[in-house]
């Protein structure tokens, strides 16, 4: 052992810088794992530390409709301290900003919520003024800056004026990310009625928060009352529940990001293996001499295995250090997404996991090029032709391949609790690498087979480098192509989704939707919109109802049935159904016959149900459903099943009744129109909110902004992780070119000796790296197109987009990076006199 360590150390003398460079390939992969792992530990710790602040109360009970007397009595019977919140979507008018309007989430509060954690506002006394019941509002910080609102300015909610007293910084239980969907405006509960916004049919959420004495076991209470909650159609949330949900969410995100980070590590390990392969070839003479001098096969092998271990350990430790530094940056990246503060600390367990994973994967990959050392014949010392003997097939290679597959699967399984994901990850990784490697081989083959022999010399030489013996084509295409693939897939998916939403407003389709229109307001609204030049294109009456029986069984029976696989939300929700005589333009009947009007004397009403809901509720044609239409039971049967294009900004419904049944029921309306420009949209919205304050509006621009905002955050985090893969690709590229540099040194020197100019040598390199860059980016973009098309078709159920700008940008970037990295890595070879370069070679 002593000899092995001593020899490994001495032998590495001349190559330590090179070995350190090889090890850089795994640095970013390990850094990604350590940063994500340690940050995830910070998050879990924060969840534990701020548990009560996650909810702001011991228990939150919520309902989608005003509490029944029975529910109220039940909640009062629970005791403890209580606070109430009513929230719904509405329009705010910024009277000081030219009457601009915005869809917001209005929160009316009463009581001492939050009981735990702090309701932080700027200035600090704003929350206190709210609690005192003044006609004041605290509004989302983003609204303040977006609409240039200052404390003291007025806003209008419904028919009431409120004075803005401050900006919302944080409130327990919610992250600023919710503001992406709908910015929050807080007012005192006592001022809600005077706004006149709470009309029948408003989609309102009622919440009651409880604070119990510390000795009260809330979890046990909730367990006992679970049945009662269902009967009363109440939802509940406890601190433990919130911890579980958040913890699970964080674990899922952590697992996903870890797998993305692992791709970088895997790619880096391939880079290490490739570099070691070149390194080992240069060491065969030394191994042969050691064998002549009496070193056994395993001893000689062990010398280089120790170097591989040292390299892996160095890379992994450096990666851990970089990972900790990256971890410092993560809180600012996810700022606003998390509903709690995160304290920074280094999780040594995460560091150990990252270093361990890096070391294991690196060593396994290093074994592949090291194994042939065992078979180096001592005869090589006297006859170099024996070097090829080491290239014979080696059964141990298969053992190492199997170990790599097992290690990757184990890592994936370790990160995600499901073995299917482990297997899926191995298969996906294998397919991606296999496709890239296969395409690289095809490219090398085609370069040899089809490149014109009469092309200029520098072109022929540059192309020949792609298919020469010991070429790096596969590795380079893998390194560059994989990163391109990941980044371009993300960009294309984003573009597809946004283009699709934008596409829904093409032509004359509606792009501005009004809702919460009362029965007596639809007429005035129609007149108003016509006057504003935006006549209603589609409108629909809405009648609220709940399901009381499904195929003969009561909802309570189905909910209590543990074998039932019907999601409870489908049974507990309030359905907003419509009635009409025809199928709308956004839907098509896929089963049965759509019944547009009721034949007199029909007892069981034929209804049409949306396909996915029918699937969830296990409903088929002819099945019966009993609805409770605001106190009146109504028997129905499924007469048709529709496919609905939900993405279009038009009134769409789960359940459609025929005409002649619901007309007399209390109802309200939604209406859609089309406006030409954002300015028209603002003008029409202001006119409507001015005349009918309780009507809310949402336009396509807002949806696009919201979607883009959410996508930007998600894409940023995923892209941040994907960048580790891209950067690893560049390092692998540099490493491969540098190791290739040693391989090609003699050839370059020979060309120089034969009279090649520096310009010619540079041109040869440029041709080679430009071709590699183009091929890698084209292959990466091709795979990304396929992946985004698959995502579009199977996940988002739409058509994938072809975004030439993104693809062209990717090709230009990748070619530039390849050229710059290639030329930088090869600098010195062409500028030094041949003799000097030869002397430098070791």
């Amino acid at each position: 052992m002593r000899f092995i360590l001593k020899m490994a150390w001495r032998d590495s003398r001349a190559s330590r810088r090179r070995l350190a460079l090889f090890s850089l390939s795994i640095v970013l992969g390990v850094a990604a794992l350590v940063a994500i792992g340690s940050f995830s530990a910070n998050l879990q710790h924060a969840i534990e530390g701020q548990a009560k602040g996650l909810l702001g109360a011991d228990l939150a009970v919520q309902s989608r409709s005003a509490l029944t007397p029975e529910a109220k009595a039940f909640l009062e019977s629970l005791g403890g301290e209580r606070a109430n919140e009513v929230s719904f979507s509405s329009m705010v008018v910024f009277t000081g900003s030219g009457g601009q309007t915005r869809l917001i989430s209005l929160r009316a509060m009463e009581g001492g919520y939050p009981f735990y954690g702090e309701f932080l506002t700027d200035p600090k006394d704003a929350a206190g003024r709210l609690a005192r019941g003044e006609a004041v509002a605290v509004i989302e910080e983003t609204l303040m800056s977006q609409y240039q609102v200052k404390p003291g300015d007025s806003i209008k909610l419904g028919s009431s004026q409120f004075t803005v007293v401050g900006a919302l910084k944080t409130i327990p239980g919610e992250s600023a990310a919710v503001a992406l969907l709908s910015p929050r405006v807080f007012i005192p509960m006592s001022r809600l009625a005077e706004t006149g916004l709470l009309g029948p049919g408003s989609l309102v959420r009622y919440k009651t928060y409880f604070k119990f004495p510390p000795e009260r076991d809330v979890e046990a209470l909730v367990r006992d009352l679970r049945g009662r909650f269902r009967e009363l159609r109440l939802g509940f949330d406890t601190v433990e529940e919130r911890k579980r949900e958040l913890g699970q969410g964080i674990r899922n995100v952590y697992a996903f990001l870890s797998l993305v980070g692992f791709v970088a590590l895997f790619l880096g390990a391939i880079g290490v293996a490739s570099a070691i392969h070149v390194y080992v070839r240069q060491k065969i003479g030394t191994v042969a001499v050691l064998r002549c001098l009496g070193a056994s096969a395993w001893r000689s092998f062990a010398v280089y295995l120790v170097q591989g271990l040292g390299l892996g350990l160095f890379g992994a430790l450096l990666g851990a250090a970089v990972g900790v530094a990256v971890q410092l940056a993560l809180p600012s990246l996810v700022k606003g997404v998390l509903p709690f503060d995160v304290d920074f600390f280094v999780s040594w367990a995460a560091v150990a996991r990252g270093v361990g994973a890096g070391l294991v994967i690196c060593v396994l990959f290093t074994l592949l090029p090291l194994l042939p050392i065992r078979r180096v014949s001592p005869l090589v010392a006297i006859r170099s032709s024996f070097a090829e003997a080491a290239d014979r097939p080696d059964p141990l290679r298969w053992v190492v391949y199997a170990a790599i597959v097992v290690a990757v699967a184990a890592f994936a399984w370790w990160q995600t609790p499901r073995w299917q994901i482990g297997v899926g990850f191995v298969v996906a990784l294998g397919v991606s690498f296999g496709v890239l490697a296969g395409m690289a081989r095809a490219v090398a083959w085609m370069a040899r087979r089809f490149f014109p022999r009469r092309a200029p010399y520098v072109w022929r030489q540059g192309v020949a480098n792609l298919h020469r013996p010991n070429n790096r084509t596969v590795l380079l295409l893998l390194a560059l192509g994989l990163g391109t693939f990941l980044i371009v897939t993300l960009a294309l998916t984003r573009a597809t989704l946004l283009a699709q939403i934008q596409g829904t407003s093409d032509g004359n389709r509606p792009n501005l939707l009004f809702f919460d229109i009362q029965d007596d307001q639809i007429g005035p609204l129609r007149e108003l919109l016509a006057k504003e030049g935006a006549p209603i294109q589609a409108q629909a009456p809405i009648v609220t109802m709940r399901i009381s029986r499904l195929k003969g069984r009561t909802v309570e029976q189905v909910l209590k049935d543990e074998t039932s696989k019907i999601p409870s939300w489908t049974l507990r929700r309030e359905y907003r159904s419509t009635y009409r005589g025809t199928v709308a333009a956004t839907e098509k009947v896929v089963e049965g016959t759509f019944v547009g009007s009721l034949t007199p004397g029909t007892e069981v009403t034929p209804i049409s149900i949306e396909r996915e809901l029918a699937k969830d509720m296990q409903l088929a044609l002819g099945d019966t459903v009993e609805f409770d239409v605001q106190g009146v039971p109504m028997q129905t049967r499924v007469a048709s099943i529709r496919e609905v294009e939900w993405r279009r900004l038009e009134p769409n419904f789960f359940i459609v009744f025929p005409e002649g049944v619901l007309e007399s029921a209390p109802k309200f309306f939604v209406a859609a129109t089309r406006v030409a420009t954002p300015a028209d949209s603002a003008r029409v919205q202001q006119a409507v909110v001015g005349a009918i304050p309780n009507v809310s509006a949402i336009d396509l621009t807002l949806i696009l902004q919201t979607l883009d905002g959410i996508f930007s955050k998600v894409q940023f985090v995923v892209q941040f992780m994907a960048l580790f893969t891209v950067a690893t690709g560049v390092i692998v590229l540099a490493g491969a070119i540098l190791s290739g540099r040693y391989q090609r040194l003699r050839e370059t020197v020979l060309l120089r000796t034969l009279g090649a100019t520096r310009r010619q040598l540079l041109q040869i390199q440029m041709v080679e790296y430009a071709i590699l860059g183009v091929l890698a980016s084209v292959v990466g973009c091709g795979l990304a197109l396929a992946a985004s098309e698959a995502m579009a078709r199977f996940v988002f159920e739409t058509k994938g987009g072809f975004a030439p700008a993104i693809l062209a940008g990717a090709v230009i970037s990748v070619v530039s990076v390849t050229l710059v990295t290639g030329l930088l890595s090869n600098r010195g070879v062409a500028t030094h006199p041949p003799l000097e370069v030869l002397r430098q070679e070791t």
Partner: protein
Amino acid sequence: MSVQSMLKVERLTKTYPSAGGALTVLREVSFDLEPGASLAIVGPSGSGKTTLLGLCAGLDRPTSGQVALAGETIGDMDEDERARVRNDHVGFVFQNFQLIPTLTALENVLVPLELRGEAGREAEAQALLTRVGLGARSDHYPIQLSGGEQQRVALARAFINTPKILFCDEPTGNLDGDTAHAMTDLIFEVNRERGATLVLVTHDLELARKCQRILRLRSGAVISDERT
């Protein structure tokens, strides 16, 4: 261990598979070499000299026949056992020196001892380097030494484990005339001092005549075995 024969070669044959069928590069070679003797193997290129040296030194396995080195039959040994025999009994001097480029001259000389796990013998290695005239260059790397100096380091390394037999493969093949002469003298001098058996492969008949026996090969077969 006292042995009557230091190197005993019996009906040694080596055949390689090739595209055109089996290629016999050595056929039925036999000879016997007593301790302390010196033998030169000569012949034209492709006559099988290096193959014979490799088989005698246990660097390869014969297709048939036997080699006994210092009383140990090495033909049936596996590669690691043969490595042990080489480390115990054999010294090498190669045409292209074969120093390990990453080790200093002193470290190169120490390798055979370190392979045995023997530490603390730097003084001995230094003395050997001094003996070959490189006492002041012990911390130099091979690249910092001339060809003749490298070969002297190789000679010091060959003798550090007190070998019973020294195999030299064209030891002066890469050296100029004067350096080659000096090297030849040094090999024989040191070999005499250390009492090792010497087997050397060479094209140089003048060098061969310095040995007690000359074995001539042609097309893989012995055509003469003469004493000088």
